[in-house]
């Protein structure tokens, strides 16, 4: 009987240990969701995350039949960043599979060098998985000297699959949007927003 009791206590402890492990695993999963989420968005184009990387298909294959899409360019600057930032061309008409080079321009008003980084997305979201960027200023941080004016290239193509997927076949206009944010540096000054509040 004592043995049975001891076994009971061990079982109790074992159950508790397993349950604590479950808690730890779920907590870990919450943090693991960060890279998982990013991977998921990049693989699926979820929430307008455009694909990146070189084109693997054959350019303009079957494009004539599929028609054309208009790609419009949008630019935004975070209020903390004293830059002007805008696309050179407002929009271009592209054929699927065609590699296209376009430019944005950025100008630094401030009297000191400033580093910025751009986030991007594509609308409609569902088209994002067929919008591929081969080269983009948004892949790296950009530093502008005081008063400097630079041209920022983007190379992209629209995957012909866009016209085959019944979910996206009717899409004829795609908007590529960028938002530039300042990159926080070590010597961080209180931002205007915080002072205002």
């Amino acid at each position, binding site marked *: 009987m004592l043995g049975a009791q001891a076994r009971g206590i061990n079982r109790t402890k074992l159950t508790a240990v397993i349950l604590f492990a479950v808690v730890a695993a*779920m907590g870990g999963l*919450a943090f693991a969701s960060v890279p998982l989420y990013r991977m998921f968005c990049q693989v699926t184009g979820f929430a307008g995350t455009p694909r990146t990387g070189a084109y693997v298909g054959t350019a303009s294959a079957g494009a004539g039949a599929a028609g054309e899409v208009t790609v419009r360019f949008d630019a935004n600057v*975070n209020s903390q960043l004293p830059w002007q930032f805008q696309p050179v061309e407002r929009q271009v008409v592209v054929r699927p599979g065609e590699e296209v080079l376009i430019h944005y321009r950025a100008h630094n008003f401030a009297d000191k060098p400033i580093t910025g980084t751009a986030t991007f997305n594509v609308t409609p*979201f569902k088209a994002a998985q067929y919008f591929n960027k081969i080269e983009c200023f948004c892949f790296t941080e950009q530093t502008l000297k005081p008063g400097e004016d630079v041209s920022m290239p983007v190379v992209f193509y629209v995957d012909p699959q866009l016209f085959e997927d019944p979910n996206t076949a009717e899409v004829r206009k795609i908007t590529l949007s960028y938002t530039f944010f300042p990159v926080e540096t070590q010597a961080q000054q209180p931002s205007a927003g*915080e002072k205002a509040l």
Partner: protein
Amino acid sequence: MAHGAAAGHGAHAHGEHDHHPTGWKRWVYSTNHKDIGTMYIVLSMIAALLGGMMSWYIRLELAEPGIQFIEDTQFYNVLVTAHGFLMVFFVVMPAMIGGFGNWFVPLMVGAPDMAFPRMNNISFWLTAAGLVLLVMSAFVGGGPGTGWTVYPPLSSIAYHPDAAVDFGILALHVAGAGSILGAINFIVTILNMRSPGMTMHRMPLFAWSILITAFLLLLALPVLAGALTMLLTDRNFGTHFYDPAGGGDPLLWQHLFWFFGHPEVYIIILPAFGIVSQLVSTFSRKPVFGYLGMAYAMSAIGVVGFIVWAHHMYTTGLGVNARAYFTTATLIIAVPTGIKIFSWLATMWGGSIDFKAPMLYAIGFIFLFVVGGVTGVALANAGIDFALHDTYYVVAHFHYVMAIAAIFAMFGGYYYWIGKISGKQYNECLAKTQFWLFFIGVNVLFFPQHFLGLAGMPRRIPDYPDVYAGWNMVSSFGALLTMLGTFLFYYIVFHTIRSGKPAEANPWGEGATTLEWTVASPAPFHTHEVQPVISAGDHGHGGHGHGAHPRPAE
């Protein structure tokens, strides 16, 4: 073999000659499941007054268009936030899980106490500390005005620059840790400490509901803790989990929050299911119809509850396939839910129903839950939700299905068990009056909010256009009735303890077959020290009470 433990069940009466600490030490250092349960109930009743007063103040402001009382709109947001947090984390959860769970799970499964009594004490005091921190957060700077969903960027340092949100995060961390420890305690107790013969398939449905709830807590709360930690480091240490400027994404918060949040609503409602099953069976004098179906329906709800979270996020730009999936998955929950509703009705069908106050509350619960379930099925359709998201329709939905339904189960539980807890029986006439006052009150309060929502009135705003004036006034009048009903309940508790009649061991007669009715009222400090042995003839889950009752330990 395991019966060996029962060999000594002689006639010695434990409860009486028991040495237990007295004075403040009895409570502060308590490791007794009943004392800890009582403390949880008291904590919940205090928090309910705080949370209630906030909601009545909100309704006072909303009674008429324009700004009447609350000039500071941030303060309005703080009220809404604190009301939600208090009610979810410090009223419903402590009362049903910490309070009734602690009191009656060991009694029902025939265990002498919880598996880890000292951990039980820590769970309670962590919850109490969480409550204090949460109340403090409202007084730090402008207070947290984020809503209970704490979405960034509103909750980020840019829009809540003082430490209020950090205090709130800390409060949830601390209370969450308490809940996780409590959940582990319940699972270990239920899996390992049942009396001989109390098999899982004979366990009362309330114990089942707490077991499943504990598993949900275990799986959901760590995710909230992780998400909150990321928010904390975003706010204070310059990380960018939710900040697009640094490559993060505020939507990540919504996914993590609702991965916790949807199971959380079931954490609140499953114990209510358990209580209502006991009530319906007791007062219909019949075993629960489809007992096993009920237990497994709860399990199914628990499992499916983890894969529907994005029905709270239809308008965030989810793709059409994701919306189709989440709509379907959400609608599937209606199946096990329907099984429960029909089983309760079938239990009542042909029973000799005794309409005592707890039974009125059980029936009231079923009514409210069905109304809220129907609006839930409407909202589950992504197309409809585009129009109704963030309107008062959603407010009406979740108050019917979760908030008020849970409160009804709690009131039912209070009246059902107060004799066992306090040793005094409540006054039936007062209790029935309180039921009708409260029932009419909440329906007048929340039903018109469906109309407001359909007409497009957004939630979480202190002011609104004149077109919405009529139903808002009606709704606020309902809040007044609800307030009176609430105060009457506190009076009834006071009256019962002061001058209630002594309660019998089993005041409910043959319908009440679970083990807590085999011990004296009030339940002695120690119960089931000698394990009761349950034989196949007994239906611990609410069978006819005529079977050989398990031997009382006292």
